[in-house]
């Protein structure tokens, strides 16, 4: 019977085509218009150098820029940098900056700002950047429009970090010598981006206006952008239907609502624009707890999970079933890892051979809304079917963080970004050096495998991409056979928008890269 229902869902999924960004490119841009976008939750602030959560990045993507952009295949293109080159030994990166770029307050943007941003500001207040910058020996600014990064040793992923969310360019003249965190300017962010900050009515909306002195001819096309704060998923759906908003970024409405919205008049949907983040969801397994330390139990659980069903019933068939620790859009992804597909029979068999006898497994759900709750319920049901006792442990965001940090769980939902490169987004969750209790984003499972540690270290510092590819292949095979986590899905977050809005998504960052190229086609 479950079969039959699969077909049913598969059918509904097949019935619509994903409209890729390419499709949206055609036609000549028209000027003007207002862009109404949903944002949620309300960002704590817009100064992306201090805060890097989703909503902040989304808005900041319009205000701030970095040196580069990345297309859907994570290939760098120019933004504030016209050109760049990497030395043979992979230790020197030289960027040539665009001329005539000014901040929103009219002050010119120069290499000094780059050095200040990377060396001072971000080192101090951007935790992810802090780790990246450890590889940087020194930053030189031979002239106003040249920046040279000298690395201690080759660091493959380095070229992948120059995006607004990671390396935003911050105005030196405003922040130098101030207390960054409490600088009043944080409330009126100043960047070089296509849009300027206008006003922010807390709990209601954020208003950006076109930056008239933007350095790219004729861009941006739209006059203003409203980010509407609507706390409740259902209301967000209503907002789109009643025409109050025109763009629903990934995850802003409940997945259950997607099909209905998707089928509306003049509505396009795409799951592109997440290639850089490559959000991968999985269940942490607390390897410190019996019987989870038994690989047979873990394998049994892995095969018990009907992830196809989850994808179809909960994610509208968007995204992919994960095959291992890397998401398929991440560099050096290998598609030939050992099989971990749904197979209840095999699961039962493995379980019977394993050391499991009737312990209750505590499953910690992710407090990010309906879909995740349902998912937890589904997983619980899956595991119950093969004879594992499961109890869902509820929690709010705070509780979840606490429990995961303290390793107070048996299984815990999570999903993390991979930032395009295993060295940036993957190794952190599998290296024993990173298994310290106290953070919910390191090697929470406490997976200990010296082999893997070693290979990760080496792979990160290899200069040649091919060598890295080979190294990561073995790593993936090894990890998958150890099953330290139960990998679920490469999440497909759909961006939904009115079809007369062109180019909402055209980089690996999707809407987070700002609406520089967006234009609205007036109804004829």
């Amino acid at each position, binding site marked *: 019977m479950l079969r039959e*229902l699969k077909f049913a869902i598969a059918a509904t999924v097949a019935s619509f085509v994903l409209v890729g960004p390419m499709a949206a490119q055609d036609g000549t841009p028209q000027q003007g218009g207002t862009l109404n976008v949903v944002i949620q939750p309300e960002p704590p602030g817009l100064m992306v150098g201090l805060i890097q959560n989703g909503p902040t990045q989304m808005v900041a993507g319009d205000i701030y820029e970095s040196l580069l952009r990345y297309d859907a295949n994570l290939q760098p293109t120019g933004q504030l940098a016209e050109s760049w080159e990497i030395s043979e030994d992979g230790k020197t990166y030289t960027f040539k900056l665009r001329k005539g770029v000014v901040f929103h307050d009219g002050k010119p943007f120069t290499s000094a700002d780059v050095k200040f941003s990377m060396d001072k500001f971000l080192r101090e207040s951007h935790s992810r950047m802090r780790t990246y910058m450890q590889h940087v020996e020194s930053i030189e600014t031979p002239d106003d429009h040249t920046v040279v990064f000298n690395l201690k040793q080759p660091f493959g992923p380095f070229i992948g970090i120059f995006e607004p969310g990671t390396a935003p360019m911050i105005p030196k003249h405003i922040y130098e010598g101030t207390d960054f965190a409490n600088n009043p300017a944080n409330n009126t962010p100043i960047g070089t981006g296509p849009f300027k900050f206008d006003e922010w009515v807390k709990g209601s909306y954020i208003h950006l206006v076109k930056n008239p002195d933007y350095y790219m001819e004729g861009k941006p096309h739209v006059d203003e952008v409203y980010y509407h704060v609507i706390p409740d998923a259902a209301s967000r759906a209503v907002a789109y239907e009643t025409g109050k908003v025109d763009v629903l970024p990934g995850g802003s409405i409940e997945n259950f609502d997607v099909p209905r919205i998707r089928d509306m008049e003049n509505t396009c949907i795409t799951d592109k624009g997440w290639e850089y983040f490559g959000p991968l969801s999985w269940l942490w397994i607390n390897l410190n707890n019996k019987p989870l330390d038994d690989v047979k139990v873990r394998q049994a659980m892995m095969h018990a999970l009907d992830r196809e069903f989850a994808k179809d*019933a909960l994610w509208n068939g968007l995204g992919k079933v994960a095959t291992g620790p890397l998401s398929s859009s991440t560099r050096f992804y290998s598609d030939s890892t050992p099989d971990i597909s749904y197979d209840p029979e095999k699961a039962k068999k493995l379980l019977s051979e394993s050391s499991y006898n009737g312990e209750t497994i505590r499953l910690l*759900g992710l407090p990010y809304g309906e879909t995740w709750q349902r998912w937890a319920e589904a997983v619980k049901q899956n595991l119950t079917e093969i004879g594992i006792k499961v109890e*869902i442990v509820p929690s709010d965001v705070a509780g979840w963080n606490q429990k995961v940090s303290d390793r107070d769980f048996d299984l815990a939902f999570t999903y993390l970004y991979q930032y395009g490169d295993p060295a940036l987004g993957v190794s952190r969750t599998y290296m024993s050096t990173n298994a310290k209790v106290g953070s919910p984003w390191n090697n929470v499972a406490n997976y200990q495998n010296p082999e893997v540690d070693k290979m990760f270290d080496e792979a990160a510092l290899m200069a040649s991409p091919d060598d890295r590819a080979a190294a990561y292949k073995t790593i993936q095979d090894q990890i998958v056979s150890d099953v330290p986590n139960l990998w679920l899905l490469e999440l497909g977050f759909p961006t939904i928008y009115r079809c007369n809005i062109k180019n909402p998504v055209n980089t690996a960052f999707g809407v987070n890269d700002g609406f520089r190229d967006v234009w609205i086609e007036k109804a004829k």
Partner: protein
Amino acid sequence: MKDFWTRFRFNRGAVIGLVILAVVIATAIAAPFIFPTSPWKMVQRPFLPPLTQNGLPLGTDALGRDVLAGLAHGAYVSLLVGLVSTVVALAIGVPVGALAGYFVGRVDDALMRFTEFFQTIPSFALAIVLLAIFQPSLTFVIIAIAIVSWPPVARLVRGEVLSLRTREFVEAATLQGLGNAQIILRHILPNALPPIIVLASLMVAQAILLESSLSFLGLGDPNIMSWGYMIGAARTVIRTAWWLSFLPGMAILLTVLALNLIGEGLNDALNPRLTRKSE
């Protein structure tokens, strides 16, 4: 007792309420036998509308689970929460009120200030906080509800005791050499009972509402299928499958309505003085 029944039956609403409640209770008890498989079992295609599939008269929810089974098991939870939390609330409120009313003066002041805090804090908000603190398991849901719903009991009981303690039969009891405990338990409380019973019946109703509101906000016990949970879960799909929110809502409405009707019936029967239809 007999005339209690005659008076109770005199109120048609109360009888209707009694019937509805009886049905709900029956379902709650019978649920495990009619729907032996857990209400969480995914039995069919998601979002099956009602009356489209044999064996699934009310269709399925977002994960293809039997809605009817959910409702049946939910009835059990709602009633349980309603009753237990009310009992707990009474267990707190009656002593507090009784002591305050009987030992007037300082004791009274202290206890009543204490009660006032709980009344001043918006109780629903408090319930949320409490549940955020103790993570939401059925037990804590019940406790939280009890904690926010005892003050009215205390006030009511206090008022009753206050007026009863000066009654001559209480003074007589004192002269007869009875101890305070005996006087409170055997002479005062029994006479304060009718209004308490009435209030209790209404409290059960309120508790059920509160529970549903809490699990609607996702603060219920996630391992338990309750009506509030069903609405909360179905809320996001209200546009595509409105019946998923509608049906459990009706269930709550009917149950609470029934309890209120019964409450009024009890009121008419137990406190003839305040009776609504007194000619």
